[in-house]
């Protein structure tokens, strides 16, 4: 009896396996078992949600990210302060060199850093994918020209490139998104171009062409969906890389300018805080580190999940 049911179970399993499943479905199924990636996704979502509800946190704890107060600088973790009118402020992560609440600043900085990372990554992805498809599909002069631009851009060390741009533009969150987006597409283009080169020789593309589909239709209806996995993986890793780039620039004083907080510029001049408030050095970097770590982990997890040669 027992053996019979297990045989029946096995048959069901076997049958389920035989049912055709799309790569995306398979990937999602694999992802559901990849706890590390799932944790990373949850952390990123939590981080985003909390950052963007910074105002709520501020009013709950009765603190402010921009009110300076010389009498309460460098307060340690978990400080409480009773104002003259009896209201209590809870500085969970202490205060900074100007007496502003550190937690609130971290959250507002998170908004800026996450926004810059996400939007710049999306911008560079849109540019990178469209250029990659077009150059891979048409080849020829367009391809040569774009390759020349890529060779030029990749020859200039990224930070130096950003140095020139920072010198030219008055940096703000918006300009940084544009700059990082417009300079960061080269890797994606190369990747997508390579994929497109192989995809355009596939039977379904040839048959689409045979029934008279326009090049635009082939590129964006037939080829683009097949790039989905490449796009998702690139996006996750790009966001991480761009958050790092933004933080580096802001740290050097060439990115987001104070008083607008960003995780990078909160560390500018942090050497002077070593003795008084080491937490001011530790926390912003930890936030960058955790965010980027999660994004890279998600990227890696997605790559494994979308790998068609992977075994279940």
């Amino acid at each position, binding site marked *: 009896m027992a053996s019979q049911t297990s045989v029946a179970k096995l048959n069901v399993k076997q049958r389920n396996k035989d049912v055709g499943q799309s790569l995306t479905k398979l990937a999602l199924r694999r992802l559901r078992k990849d706890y590390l990636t799932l944790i990373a996704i949850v952390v990123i979502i939590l981080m985003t949600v909390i950052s963007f509800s910074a105002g709520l946190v501020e009013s709950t704890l009765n603190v402010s990210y921009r009110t300076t107060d010389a009498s309460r600088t460098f307060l340690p973790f978990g400080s409480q302060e009773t104002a003259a009118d009896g209201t209590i402020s809870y500085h969970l992560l202490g205060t900074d060199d100007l007496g502003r609440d550190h937690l609130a600043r971290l959250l507002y900085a998170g908004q800026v850093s996450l926004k810059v990372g996400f939007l710049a990554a999306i911008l560079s992805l849109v540019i990178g994918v469209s250029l990659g498809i077009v150059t891979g599909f048409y080849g020829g002069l367009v391809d040569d020209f774009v390759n020349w631009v890529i060779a030029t851009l990749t*020859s200039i*060390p990224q930070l*130096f490139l950003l140095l*020139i741009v920072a*010198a*030219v533009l008055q940096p703000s969150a918006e300009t940084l998104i544009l700059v990082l987006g417009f300079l960061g597409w080269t890797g994606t283009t190369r990747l997508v171009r390579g994929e497109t080169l192989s995809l355009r020789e596939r039977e379904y593309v040839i048959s689409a062409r045979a029934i008279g589909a326009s090049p635009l239709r082939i590129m964006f209806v037939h080829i683009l969906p097949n790039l989905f996995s490449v796009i998702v993986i690139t996006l996750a890793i790009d966001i991480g890389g761009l958050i790092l780039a933004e933080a580096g620039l802001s740290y050097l004083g*060439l990115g987001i300018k104070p008083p607008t907080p960003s995780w*990078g510029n909160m560390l500018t001049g942090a050497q002077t805080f070593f003795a008084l408030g080491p937490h001011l050095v530790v926390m912003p*970097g930890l936030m960058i580190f955790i965010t980027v770590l999660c994004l890279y982990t998600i990227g890696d997890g997605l790559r494994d999940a979308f790998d068609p040669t992977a075994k279940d």
Partner: protein
Amino acid sequence: MIKYTIRRLVQAIPTFFGITLFSYILMLGAPGGPVASLTFDPRVTPQQRARVAAQLGVNDPFPVQYLRWLMGDDWMRWDADGDGVSDHAVLVDLGLDANADGDFDDEGDAIYPPGTRKGIIRGDFGRSFFYRREVSSMIGERVAATLELGATALLTGLVIGVPVGILAAVFKGSFFDNITRILAVIFNAIPIFWLGLILILVFGSALGWLPMGGRFPIGIGLGDIPIYQRLEFLILPTFVLSTGAIAVYSRYMRASMLDVKSQDYMRTAQSKGLPGRTVWFRHGARNALIPLATFLGPAITGLLSGAAITETIFSWPGLGRFGVEAVTSQDYNVVMAVVIIGAVATMLGYILSDIFYAIIDPRIRFD
């Protein structure tokens, strides 16, 4: 081989042209600009400002300006009447020669007299607006520091990354493999300026074991002491700068090693009864190292970008920090020089790795 090298160098010309054009166009949009920073003094009259502008040629059409910056303008003038003075010129206004009133002095002035520039192709990056000195000689003073740091970091990356990668592949799935994999992800994700700050905080400030920055002990001049006597100054910056390289090399080496593992000659070596060590290291690792040759170009870009940040944290007197400071002080000749030199170094790195690769794997030459 010579043919391949030459072809590769010729291919680099359009890239070099692209780099100069791209950075020059970007720089044209920079605020302030040379005229503003040279005539910042409120006592400067509009006439003087106009003269400075004309000397710098900022009112000329873009292609002319670009040409002068790239190739110089000394060849644009000639001696028409045979009196030994080059007094005729194209595209250069000699009438506004700063020598006319005799106040041009070689060290103090930020502008060249028209018709004496050599152009960046011949290593003439003009003068720093801020320091009023030749940019090229100031770069020369800083190149050594960046080379020292970059080379040590690259070496550290290789010396740690390669063996770690090999071992991770040999013991695939082991504890060592997993822990190095996690460390590689961590090294990749950690913001290096923060890592630097924390290390200074721990080793420089709290423990006091290592200096908090700089390249020499305070009070000792440049170049006075050999590198082995100031290793303590190198430890932290090198570690910070090499984290990325260690992570990338170890992962890359592991993948390359696993690739090699499935090759026929590995199976042959195993089946003829060679000990595992010989199979892995003599047959495996040596072949797995080949693709690493292509990594020099990307490595240089990474190191230069990282150097700008690392040098700033550790007050290391190198090129990167010089560039960052120049952006802040709107010293555009310096910014351009640093960017162009960084780009050329990267380009040469890519060419060198291609040539290495072609030496190791002759099939490449005929692509």
